[in-house]
């Protein structure tokens, strides 16, 4: 038995990609299948240096199609398998992810968003929200955690493996280049030492016993003879997803109960939004914020309640309205105007959000 990667609490100051390597090790991931792409590369680099010490596996595949499908193979074998990707790699990854979604295969994928579509801009971006939540030819039955700190990168990665194997929906950590490359203090820990119950993996193929004689064979398929067969599979998944949504949806609010302006942001931009609310409150402006942690499923009811108590809504994101489109159905019928502060592929500072918020409040007559 290989040694456990972490014992006790380990305080560290490290880059997000290194945090992710420790997180996947601590989560009990057995194997990573990966293909190089910035900004997730250092995750692979740390994994390849650390994995063998703890009896874990790695394979560098020929592309992201292969990495995604090999991750599926690892999961079918009964191992906690994961991959990490970004940008155009995330595009290629959608084909295996569509298969995983339809066949309820618990793959874990770490996405380090980068500016689209091809190359050069690899730090600030939230342009892979649509792709990660709804990419592929399926219905988006996925769990997507949008992290905003290294501590969250660590803890939600631990959680992602549990959620994937418990609910059997593909589960994502949606980070970005900024989180991957940034250094931040963090406390690493072994989840079981903390009392976390870790969901075990189990084989879906290659079960004990002679198939056809001692047991039925496992025949996993993605092909259907009748439209009704496909319909039943999709509707069963839809039902499971809807029932799980209340358990899965996570969000954070700050000063949202008495705000006139509700700022909605996710991921690393939510940090700027939180800081902006503090600036605005110091100025005497009544701002609050709502941050969805899960983009899929979304905490729709809570978002609607928070929005319903405000007069104005501001969506801030490093994309051109991908978050806004995601949340708008939850706000349907509300009269509060929704403003977008869209900075595709750019970083967003607290001061920029605060200035935009003050402008909107003042022009609507709710300012000082």
């Amino acid at each position, binding site marked *: 038995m290989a040694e456990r990667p972490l014992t006790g609490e380990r305080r560290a100051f490290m880059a997000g990609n290194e945090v992710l390597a420790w997180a996947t090790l601590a989560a009990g991931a057995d194997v990573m299948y990966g293909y190089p792409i910035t900004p997730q590369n250092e995750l692979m680099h740390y994994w390849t240096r650390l994995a063998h010490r703890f009896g874990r596996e790695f394979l560098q595949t020929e592309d992201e199609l292969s990495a995604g499908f090999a991750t599926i193979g690892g999961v079918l074998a009964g191992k906690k398998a994961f991959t990490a990707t970004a940008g155009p790699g995330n595009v290629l990854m959608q084909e295996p992810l569509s298969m995983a979604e339809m066949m309820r295969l618990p793959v874990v994928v770490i996405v380090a968003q980068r500016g689209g579509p091809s190359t050069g801009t690899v730090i600030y971006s939230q342009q892979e929200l649509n792709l990660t939540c709804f990419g592929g030819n399926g219905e988006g039955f996925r769990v997507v955690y949008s992290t905003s700190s290294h501590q969250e990168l660590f803890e939600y990665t631990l959680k992602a493996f549990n959620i994937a194997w418990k609910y059997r929906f593909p589960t994502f950590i949606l980070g970005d280049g900024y989180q991957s490359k940034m250094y931040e203090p963090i406390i690493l820990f072994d989840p079981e030492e903390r009392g976390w119950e870790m969901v075990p993996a189990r084989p879906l193929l290659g079960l004990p016993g002679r*198939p056809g004689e001692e047991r039925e*064979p496992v025949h996993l398929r993605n092909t259907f003879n009748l439209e009704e067969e496909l319909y039943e599979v999709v509707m069963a998944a839809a039902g499971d997803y809807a029932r799980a949504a209340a358990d899965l949806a996570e969000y954070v609010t700050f000063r949202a109960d008495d705000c006139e302006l509700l700022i909605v942001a996710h991921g690393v931009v939510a940090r700027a939004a939180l800081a902006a609310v503090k600036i605005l409150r110091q100025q005497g402006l009544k701002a609050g914020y709502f941050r969805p942690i899960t983009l899929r499923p979304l905490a729709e009811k809570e978002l609607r309640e928070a929005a319903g108590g405000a007069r104005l809504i501001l969506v801030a994101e490093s994309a051109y309205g991908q978050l806004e489109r995601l949340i708008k159905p939850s706000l349907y019928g509300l009269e509060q105007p929704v403003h977008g502060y869209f900075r595709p592929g750019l970083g967003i500072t607290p001061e920029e959000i605060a200035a935009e918020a003050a402008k909107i409040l003042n022009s609507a007559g709710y300012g000082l």
Partner: protein
Amino acid sequence: MSVQARPAIPRSWRPETKPHKFCPGCGHGLILKALGMAVDELDLQDRLIFACDIGCSLLAWDFFNIDSIHTHHGRTLPVLTGLKRVRPELIVVAYMGDGGAYAIGAQHLVNAAARNEFLTVIVANNSLYAMTGGQMAPTTLPGQKTETTPYGREVKAAGAPVLGPELVDSIAPTGAYIARGTVASMIQLKNFIKKALVHQIEGKGFSFVESLSTCPTNWRTNAAETWHFLEKEMSGYFKVGEIRQ
């Protein structure tokens, strides 16, 4: 002690799913019979994983009393790579057509062979895309008429037919097993598949068997013409035999 008659079908086949779903005259049933016989002779039923691709090969998803996974077009090799890497005690067979192996999944074939993955790959070469209605495949012969080469494949415009086993031979390191069989020679085909499986069991490396196959539905041939095309046209271009032992 009772004496059992030799079964009409391989023991590893799943009788509940027979008769199978392939067209009359299709070669898939014969290739799968050769595979079933090899599996029986090696007694692999309880440690084999059978994986099929997209195209007519997918109709084999419930063909055997063997744990099976149906994947996407061309993606059977990476799925099995991911599985075999973490469960090396399992014996894995990828079953696919020429389109999956040599066109949409070509990068996976090239790289799995180059890495000498411990996989057994069986490719049915019927010279066209059958399930989609008879379009040109990488293996379509010069001059052969298909839905996308209605006047015959012109090598100048559409390239020459891909020689799959020869391609693998040029890439795979020492230790690989590579052969081309045909449904016209069943015992030979079964022996090639059996040697490929033994190769994997013994941990020697990548093993690859292409089988020439028939598609009277899309060839639009009767029995005699089907046999002629297989035995004369295809076997003339694609040389049957072991390339590496």
